[in-house]
């Protein structure tokens, strides 16, 4: 399993309080329980803190699933 995906799974499990959640590159707000707008904010803030990155305004709206998110995180980490 890709290391960023693995870490995201751990963050999602904590924030959503779902210890058995299986996250894949295809996961999105429609197929993950409780991934609503409020938990989305918590997820984003936690990810930003974990990787010491900052998503720019509007960047997140363009993502359609966790796979897109991982790609964006990798770009940000490389540019860090």
């Amino acid at each position: 399993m890709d290391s960023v995906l693995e870490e995201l799974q751990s963050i999602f499990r904590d924030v959503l309080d779902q210890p058995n959640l299986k996250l894949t590159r295809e996961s999105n707000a429609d197929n993950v329980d409780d991934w609503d707008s409020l938990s989305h904010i918590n997820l984003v803030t936690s990810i930003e803190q974990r990787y010491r990155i900052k998503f720019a305004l509007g960047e997140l709206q363009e993502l359609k699933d966790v796979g897109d998110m991982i790609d964006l995180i990798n770009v940000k980490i490389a540019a860090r």
Partner: protein
Amino acid sequence: MHELLLKRKSLRRQLSAAEGLQPVRIAILGGSTTNEVADLLEIFLLASGIQPVFHHSEYGRYYEDAVLDPADLIAFNPAIVYLHTSYLNVQAVPPVDCSEQEFRKHVEAEIGRYRQIWESIERNLSAQIIQNNFELPPFAVLGNLDAVSLGGTSRFFLALNAEFAAAAARNPRLLVQDIHGISARIGLSRWFDWDRYFSYKILMTTEGNVAVARSLSSLVRAIYGKSRKVLVLDLDNTIWGGVIGDDGVEKIQIGRETPVAEAYTAFQEYCLSLHKRGILLAVCSKNNEEVAKQGFEHPDSVLKLEHISCFKANWEPKHENLLAIARELNLGVESFVFVDDNPAERAIVEAQIAGIAVPNIGNEVSRYAAIIEEGRYFEAISMSEEDLTRAALYRSNSERANLEVKFANYGEYLDSLEMSAEIERFKPLYLERIAQLTNKTNQFNVTTRRYTLAEMEAILRDERYIGLYGKLSDRFGDNGLISIVLGRRELDLLHLDLWLMSCRVLKRDMELAMLDVLVENARAASIATLRGYYLPTRKNGMVADHYEKLGFERDSLDPDSKSSVWTLDLQTYTPRNRHIRILEPVHG
């Protein structure tokens, strides 16, 4: 903070499972998105045994939901209404070219809206109102003038905050949460989060919301009488540096002589300020009781035994001593804050005693007070009669600030300082400081001779020397050890090898007090004459006339080096000091 954010949900689940939680209904009327602050508040309250039940106003409709359409609010029947507004919710800030009259009108208009909200809540509900005041605006477009000019936004918000304070002082139903202070302590650059605001209408950073939620939970605890009342202190490396049992009282770090000692003194002063506002202080230390108590008799200890309500120094486990303190004070341990630099002691106390607060103060004394402050343990919703009478015993700050202006002459000013000095022969306790002063004092220093600690130790044992140190206190506090005179005897003549003073006590007549005591000591040793030397350096010009001012006669002046020799005949000397009370020596 990272943990708190990440594990919010599971924390809430675990804490909610506790038994006997007290349900409290809290309505939040917000000017921006309030979910995050409510989430965090819930966790803090659950940890204090309170289960909050929330009602949120519609987004941004804090005014409408309170004044125009309060039916939902009334139906919810909250015990507490929290009005969470920010600078963004102000309807109209004064124009840049604002007149005095216009400024008042703008303040009135804004305050009027809040008054309507508070009155409507008071009329319709029996709830306690918590209203936060305003942080400063993120931009000061007028620069420094922003806080001064009538058209300055900063000035406008400061005026609104003053109105909030006045309204809360008149109305026990209204409590102000001081977001102005909270945001300042965090820093505005870490307070506002514009990305989150533009994306989700959350104005503040998580850090900001954590601080707001923590302060809010303290207010709620205070409303329900659950504020903490006792500060329990460890001793070694907590309120003084070093281990008193190993090092002895003369070696512990407290006072003004080293940076570390200064930091411990500052922390003791913080503890004393809590005591003055009515917080009880207790001691819980692994120590021999008799030895531990000596630390409070150290001349520089700010905390005295009289400030300690309960003193436990023994070798029993700390959690057992804490329970004993609770029994003796007749207070619950959940009203205790336990402060200890030792992480192992903190861990065991936290594990053994439910409900006690054990802040992780780390091990840097300069951070202790700030870390305790962050916990907001001792919140009060008002100062009780008892607190106030206690506080009145202490001089008010405004009295001090006005001090300098009202004196007919300088002598009267000096008298008003209520100075007292301890001027005594060198003691082992102070030798380090004495040697240090000889090495760092350059201006008020007639000979600029430097001494090592070893040399001073030799001098202490040598009967030819009369060495005096001076410590000066005034009504504003202790200035520490600030002056040294060292005389070397030759028959009935005393050569003054050294006379120096720290510049922080210039023009206090301390040199007259030193001379009086020096003459006393010299006479007791059958010395007839004092001989002073001035050796000029690039820095000590201020003491060129030191001996002349003290009434010495000049014997000689070297035309090249400009150094001079001075003599004082002790037969005709009369005491000079008029303004400093000399403390009687404690012993000898």
